């Protein structure tokens, strides 16, 4: 009996010591300045943000905490005051976020293009078409039972983009989703790509995630439609408005945005993926927009992601005009 009591006491003491030591450790580390960023999954799941976090934390006395949830939920987090800033890719929702007073200091940080990917056999014969025609072909093949479409179905930025593309093609998404060939995954990009692969279907993919999955041989889907203004994908950072959510860390968010749009931050974005994938997963947007080049891409970004001619209208610049000079 004595021995048993001794064993139990030791076990209990071990558990208590672990708990107390761990708690003390967390309390001691939580005194550092904290910056919570809710982000779209494509920036996080490609590991780009891990690289940016390491470099940012080496330069600033701030601990960055990323929460990878997708654009829809990221915005909800910010509206509830649970994030200090967001990294998202859905201009229409971003505009509403600014106009509702939740967001300030929006900066466009990067862009790339979506692609419609599908099986190599390409039953709907969309290879090389422009997006609206390609979608019409997929609908036709789908109704004949020859093709399937997998949608993210999760209210993410990519999902919003997909709905916009159906609209551009003159189709009604709310009716299409009821049809048999239209599959709603309700999942992140990676899972959606795997489902698409399984069904030999088509889907809309962001290039970052697609390339990672393709190069790692997780999927064999091919990029079939990659051309067209409609496929532009623009990423922005927006700080949460402190006058609406007093407990948020606005200064930290501004520092992070400054870092992202600095030459160094933009270089990290440009270089990311070149070694592993042979090409950039995301292209830096700041230099391109500042030079105001007559490039067609700049026009596209302005058409798609500017609000009344501004990346961030003056009333939402929150006393930080230097970000926009």
């Amino acid at each position, binding site marked *: *009996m004595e*021995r*048993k009591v001794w*064993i*139990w006491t030791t*076990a209990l003491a071990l*558990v*208590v010591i*672990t*708990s107390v030591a*761990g*708690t003390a450790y*967390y309390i001691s580390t*939580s005194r550092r300045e904290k910056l*919570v960023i809710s982000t779209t*999954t494509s920036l996080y*799941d490609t*590991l780009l943000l*891990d690289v940016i*976090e390491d470099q940012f934390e080496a330069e600033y006395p701030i*601990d960055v*905490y*990323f*929460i*990878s949830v997708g654009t829809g939920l990221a915005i909800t987090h910010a509206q*509830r*005051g*649970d994030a200090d800033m967001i990294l998202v890719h859905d201009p229409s929702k971003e505009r509403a976020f600014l106009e509702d007073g939740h967001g300030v200091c929006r900066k466009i940080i990067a862009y790339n293009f979506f692609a419609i990917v599908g099986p190599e056999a390409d039953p709907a014969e969309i290879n090389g078409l422009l997006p609206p025609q390609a979608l019409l072909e997929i609908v036709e093949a789908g109704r004949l039972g020859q093709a399937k479409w997998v949608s993210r179905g999760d209210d993410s930025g990519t999902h919003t983009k997909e709905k916009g593309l159906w609209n551009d093609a003159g189709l009604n998404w709310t009716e299409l989703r009821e049809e048999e060939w239209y599959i709603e995954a309700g999942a*992140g990009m*990676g*899972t959606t790509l*795997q489902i698409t692969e399984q069904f030999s279907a088509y889907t809309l993919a962001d290039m970052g995630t697609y390339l*990672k*999955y393709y190069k*790692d041989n*997780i999927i064999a889907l091919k990029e079939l439609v990659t051309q067209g203004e409609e496929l532009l994908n623009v990423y922005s950072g927006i700080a949460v408005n402190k006058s609406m*959510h007093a*407990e948020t860390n606005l200064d930290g968010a501004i520092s992070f945005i400054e870092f992202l749009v600095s030459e160094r931050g933009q270089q990290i974005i440009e270089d990311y993926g070149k070694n592993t994938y042979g090409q950039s997963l995301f292209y830096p947007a700041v230099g391109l927009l500042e030079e105001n080049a007559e490039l067609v891409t700049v026009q596209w970004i302005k058409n798609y992601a500017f609000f009344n001619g501004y990346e961030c209208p003056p009333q939402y610049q929150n006393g930080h005009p230097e970000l926009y000079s």
Partner: protein
Amino acid sequence: MQSVWEILEGIRRVIELFGNPVVLETTFRSIYVSGTATLLSALLGIPLGVLIGFRDFTGKHFVKGIFNALLGMPTVALGLILYIVFSHSGFLGFLDLLYTPMAVMFGQAILITPIMISLVVHAVESVDPDVRDLARTLGASETEASIAVLRESTAGVALASISCFNRAIAELGVAIAVGGNIRGLTRVLTTTIALEVMRGEIEYSIAMAALLLLIVFAVTLAINLIQRRRP
């Protein structure tokens, strides 16, 4: 054949993982968070369980029924409720607990306390009623009689604690919703697995899953060994 190979490859990588500081940190965090949650639920659940199991009162079946019903609490539902409560717009938002290990800890403690209570009640009720009566005959007070019964049900209480720890360390819903799966702060084994699957890192995920199973089995085995050394 392919999948067998994948699993074997995963196991080989588990062994390699023990040298990886990030993995060790995540594993330690999992054990710390879920261990503390178990401790919290034991502090509340064992006395309450003994009390309910020991006494007869009106509505006892009703109370037991409630805790039994809570055994099946879906973690994703609990996670959502706790997110709303801990959110800065929620009524406990001022505590600033959201996206901290403490939030995950409290969430897991809430998840497992009904399990603790139900299993302890069961263990106490399984003790021969003569033990209590004998203790009372020998002049023991109500509290002393309770302790005598608790001593007899040590095995059941240990099993309850282990079940709770295993449930806590294996759950995902609460850890994602109120922890946020933040690298270096709230990332635990289950949230790592969920993230790495999404990232397409299947092998790494299998290795982490194997590590999680290893912890669960090791803890259960250790308790079994201790119990076998009965005098």
